[in-house]
């Protein structure tokens, strides 16, 4: 396959000092700047290498997942590929048009209408006005904001803003697509739409470089680059890179959920004793049909009075080997919310949730159970892999949205008190 992206010995240097100075600083600092010397590794005072001697090649149509702890140079790498930054040493080569989902809605002006902004944003993304006119209807349909197109975007909600911006970006033609974490801004269903769209682009032969903390996305890459402190640690198939990454992250103390678990005298303040997975008729389930009804029954025990305890459950695909750092909303995720408000008295109880349409990736799923305090800051009790359930039939469709579960919560026992 022809090479679409190539980096050769690329290094990028940044300064920790203030980025802009005044003329007075410049004049007064001039003699000092004549005197200063670069240290052995080519750095001045306050400077550091954001990326060091990075080389890799990416074939056309491949997808590179980039992972690494914060500050490891992931975003710098994307900006270098996008020609926003220039490297101090080395060469960056990209073939064809480079586009990015780095900044959604670049050039949006709050006072201008959605329609006007579509044209400006499209032009910034390299579309001709004629091309935007041709695609205008499709862009508007994609965003689902037809009746709001004449409204100034300052009156948009942040979700509407993101949807319109993404709709334009999705209609730009690119050969190399750069995706940054920014996609995390939208809600979960919006994110799904983004990742879905990305998967379709990839099938069309677009080369993708994607920075993400979502290991599910990284896992779908054809190759994975693990960065730490600006240096390439590993370039490998995703599962191995993810494993290495998780080891590093855990060693650094960015720890797993378990470490937050509170305990009272060796015993947690609350706990889920048992969970039942039932179908619409109340029969126990081992397999789950796509689009069918799922009934989840939590049997819990509260040992010590709690402010609005929350019972939650996530389903995690079994082939995903990463118990931490994965935003759980990517998975099927249900929580009782504040249903148990004021009902945190000690004792046993049962709550039930009904999910009318289950939409999950096909395969075996581990069922993880959580008990949170009302603010959802940290779990009081966690049990991962409590049981397993098999999901039948793949459901990667355009309308896929794992979060569109119209959940219904009911308290079964003890009797609801008002």
């Amino acid at each position, binding site marked *: 396959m022809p090479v679409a992206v190539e980096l050769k010995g690329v290094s990028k240097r940044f300064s920790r000092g203030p980025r802009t100075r005044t003329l007075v600083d410049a004049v007064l600092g001039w003699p000092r700047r004549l005197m200063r010397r670069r240290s052995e590794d080519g750095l001045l005072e306050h400077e550091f290498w954001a990326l060091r001697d990075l080389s890799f090649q990416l074939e056309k149509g491949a997808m590179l997942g980039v992972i690494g702890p914060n500050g490891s140079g992931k975003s710098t790498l994307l900006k270098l590929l*996008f020609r926003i930054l220039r490297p101090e040493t080395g060469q960056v080569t990209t073939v064809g048009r480079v586009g990015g989902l780095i900044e959604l809605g670049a050039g949006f002006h709050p006072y201008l209408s959605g329609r006007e902004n579509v044209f400006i944003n499209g032009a910034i993304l390299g579309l001709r006005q004629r091309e935007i006119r041709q695609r205008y209807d499709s862009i508007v349909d994609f965003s689902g904001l037809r009746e709001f197109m004449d409204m100034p975007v300052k009156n948009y909600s942040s979700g509407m803003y993101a949807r319109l911006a993404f709709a334009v970006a999705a209609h730009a033609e690119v050969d190399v697509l750069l995706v940054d974490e920014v996609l995390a801004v939208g809600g979960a269903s919006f994110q799904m739409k983004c990742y879905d769209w990305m998967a379709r682009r990839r099938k069309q032969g677009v080369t993708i470089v994607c920075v993400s903390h979502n290991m599910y996305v990284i896992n779908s890459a054809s190759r994975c680059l693990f960065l730490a402190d600006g240096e390439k640690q590993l370039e490998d198939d995703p599962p191995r890179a993810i494993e290495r990454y998780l080891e590093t992250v855990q060693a650094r103390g960015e720890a797993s959920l378990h470490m937050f678990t509170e305990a009272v005298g060796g015993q947690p303040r609350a706990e889920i004793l048992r969970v039942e997975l039932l179908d619409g008729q109340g029969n126990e389930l081992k397999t789950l049909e796509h689009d069918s009804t799922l009934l989840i029954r939590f049997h819990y025990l509260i040992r010590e009075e709690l402010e609005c305890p929350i019972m939650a459950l996530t389903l995690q695909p079994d082939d995903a080997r990463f118990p931490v750092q994965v935003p759980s909303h990517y998975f099927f995720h249900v929580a009782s919310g504040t249903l148990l408000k004021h009902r945190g008295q000690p004792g046993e109880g049962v709550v039930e949730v009904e999910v009318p349409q289950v939409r999950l990736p096909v395969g075996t799923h581990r069922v993880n159970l959580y008990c949170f305090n009302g603010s959802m800051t940290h779990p009081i009790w966690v049990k991962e892999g409590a049981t397993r359930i098999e999901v039948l039939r793949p459901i990667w469709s355009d309308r896929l949205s794992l979060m569109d579960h119209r959940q219904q919560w009911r308290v079964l026992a003890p009797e609801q008190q008002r």
Partner: protein
Amino acid sequence: MLADVKETWRYRELIVALAMREVRVRYKHALLGIGWAVIMPLVLMLVFTEIFSRVASISTGGIPYPLFAYTGLLAWQLHANIIQGASRCLSDNSNLVTKVYFPRQVLPASVVLSALVDFAVAALLLAGLMAVHRVTPGWQVAFVPLVLALQLSLASGLALFVSAANLFYRDVQFILQVGVQLWMFASSVLYPLPSQGVFAWVNLLNPMTPILDAWRYTLLGAPAPRPESLAAAAGLSLLTLVLGWAWFRRAEARFGELA
């Protein structure tokens, strides 16, 4: 440089879109809308007409003073708008400069274009004033595009320079507010400058005076500027454009970090 021109041309629609955004935003919530483009030069013209008719008398070579002043202000306004707009164009659009790739000269170029829109609107009033004063331009009016091109090459060169400079030192935009005012009073915007003595040298170094004189020559039939000072102005303007361009190209590598 030819490759740069080509790339800029490829992005011409973006230049237009950004200029239109600027114009739209500026006038969207203004009661008088685009009429504001006329008000500034009009008010200044009226004030100075009062001053020079009551307090001090001034010789404008047979040209009605309001026309003399308005023509000067019209051309100067274009010049000042470009320079001051350009000084902020990269720093104000830092979300674009640090997040999206497109040739960076698109931003100062769109400033030039949006200033030209204001210029065109304000020029309509000049036509009206000329009709009132019964001044009809002669055959020299054919040179207007040339004069405009000359002034734009000077302004564009400066625009490229100050837009980049303001990223390195944010005081540039404030210095310019004072500097552009001083420059106006050192040019023949509101009054003719003598062409003898020390002014012969000042005029030789300040390309704007011959350019302003050339505007009045082509539009109002005023005496033509001296050929040598016009030639010097042309040379300086082109030099400014080339140097501004070279500086912009050199500085561009760091825009992504500085904006």
